[in-house]
């Protein structure tokens, strides 16, 4: 018998550079045609646990949209184990953003060990504060700000709800700041924790911050969800109660894998909604938000 199928042969696609990253419970293998995004990731994630054994939960790929786009007006196409058919490519100077989007995409479409809530989260005394809302609600900025004021940062993109224990697990990737939030955070976070400024991305100007070292070191520690907020930026400061059915429906919309988990997701979410206090919160400045949050947190038993 011929050894047909072994060996390499002509028509191989270009070789990829790669890097391993562990964020919370998820291990990523990021492969890229270009070194640039990997060098940036390596620098920004230098304090994260290094994976030595080669295992990965997900592979992310960053490749030219067409072969010639490796050199001519390079454009980065995001794919991997899980991918979306209509994902728009990004220019090479936004390849760090592409890598982050690629990792988020794997989590959103492929992660099944937790119910994923599109929410930021911070922890104090073993209890977690979650913030969810539409883009522009300020949930990411609020979590970044609280992380500089004594809270442990757990994540600004996904809160991972364990369906068996009801605990929230940390997914503390880089904090993604947009537009005005960049200048606001520059006032309180040292320069050496900032990534490159990426202008005019599909989401506006973006700059990443490395989370505080403490939150990276404790990224394996879960916390008990104690309060969920729906922040809204730009309105007079106010707190409102919300009905459980509204909360439930909004969280199904805020979850990327609620449907994919089937009954497990339903049970996890009903348990969450039944046990965790919730408030809608309007604010016009970070100070106002902090004051409201401190007040609510103090009232928790």
């Amino acid at each position, binding site marked *: 018998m*011929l050894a*047909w*199928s*072994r*060996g*390499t*042969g*002509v*028509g*191989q*696609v270009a*070789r*990829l550079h790669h890097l391993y990253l562990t964020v919370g419970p998820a*291990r990523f*293998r990021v*492969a890229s045609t270009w070194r640039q995004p990997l060098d940036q990731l390596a620098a920004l994630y230098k304090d994260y646990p290094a994976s030595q*054994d*080669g*295992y*990965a*939960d997900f*592979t992310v*790929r960053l*490749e030219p949209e067409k072969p010639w786009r490796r050199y001519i007006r390079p454009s980065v196409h995001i794919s*991997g*184990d*899980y991918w979306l058919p209509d994902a728009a490519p990004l220019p090479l100077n936004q390849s760090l953003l592409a890598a982050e989007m690629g990792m988020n995409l794997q989590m959103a479409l*492929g992660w*099944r*060990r937790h119910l994923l809530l599109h929410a930021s989260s911070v922890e104090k005394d073993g209890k977690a504060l979650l913030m969810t809302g539409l883009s522009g609600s300020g949930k990411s900025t609020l979590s970044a700000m609280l992380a500089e004021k004594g809270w442990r940062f757990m994540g600004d993109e996904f809160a991972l709800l364990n369906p068996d224990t009801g605990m929230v697990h940390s997914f503390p990737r880089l904090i993604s700041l947009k537009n005005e939030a960049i200048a606001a955070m520059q006032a309180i976070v040292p320069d050496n924790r900032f990534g490159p400024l990426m202008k005019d991305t599909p989401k506006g100007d973006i700059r990443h911050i490395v989370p505080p070292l403490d939150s990276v070191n404790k990224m394996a520690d879960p916390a008990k969800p104690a309060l969920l907020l729906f922040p809204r930026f730009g309105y007079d400061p106010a707190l409102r109660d919300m009905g459980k059915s509204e909360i439930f429906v909004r969280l199904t919309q805020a979850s990327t894998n609620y449907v*994919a*988990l*089937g009954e*497990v997701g339903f049970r996890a979410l009903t348990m969450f909604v039944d046990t965790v206090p919730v408030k809608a919160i309007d604010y016009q400045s970070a100070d106002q938000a902090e004051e409201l949050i401190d007040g609510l947190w103090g009232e928790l038993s």
Partner: protein
Amino acid sequence: MMHNAQSLVDALREPDTVLALDGAKWADLISIARAESLVGSLAHRLADIEVPKQVEPILRDAIQATDLARQQALWEADSARRALAPLNCKTVLMKGTAYVAANLDVGIGRSIGDLDIMAARDQLPAVEELLLDAGWEWVKQDSYDDQYYRDHMHELPPLIHRERDRMIDVHHTILPLTARPTPNAVEILNAAIKLDSELYVMAPADMLLHSVAHLFADGDLAGGLRNLWDIDRLVQQFANEDKEFWTELATRAKLHQLERHLERALRLAARLYGTPVCEDRAGKTRFADFLYVRRLLARDGWGRENRKFTRQAFYIRSHWLRMPPLMLARHLWTKWRKG
């Protein structure tokens, strides 16, 4: 870095082979299996193997995902049954949904996407109307595509359910009307087997032949490893359970004009998955088998398709098989003008 999908084929055929993998090779294997939609089947195949603890949750996830896919597929099938009940005609489930509805080994861990059903051609307008009434709607609005489907394809243009967001493909035969073999759709419906649910699945030989037709004639062999794994599982189970299976298969292959296709599929399954096949049905090895194997294994450890030339050749070939030259030219011209 793995340069082809051989490790996946090895793991499916002989689960012990994974014991030799290190961490990076496991990462390759998982990416390849996900890209080939075989990660659920792989996870089940490795159920009795002691895999590294880093891999266990990945395989468990894959099993849970396909368990849910099975449940959803059966629900979709039942929704279609309810919608079509007034018609009182045979509704035959096809592919993945049929495998799980009939509780076949091939359904274990299989990924399932759209719901595929088959009904008699003269019933199609009524089927279409009932599905539209029950909440399905057209996916494509384009009138060229719509007319193309109706004139030349073996199925209605795809429909999607407006609430559940799930697609249904309604077939009246198993190959496009423009393809060279002409399977006997009436005979397939006549021989179909009724399940407890009142839905039907194809009889064993027809079911295997549909899988064969699907592998070769209805595509460019993308996802071919999964289709070929279906063929392996079907052959192993049917040949085991029924001594007359190979004889029946010969009769039905002739009836559906799929003898050559069947031979090649069996040779490829035997070569890649070690499927025990009846030599009279598989025929002699041909040179082109080599190209098929190259094409089927064209995926690297990052999960990327490689061997571009081989793939391109199969893509052109898939269109060539599907339509006569003049029609192909007209089709590509229209598609090109529309951008």
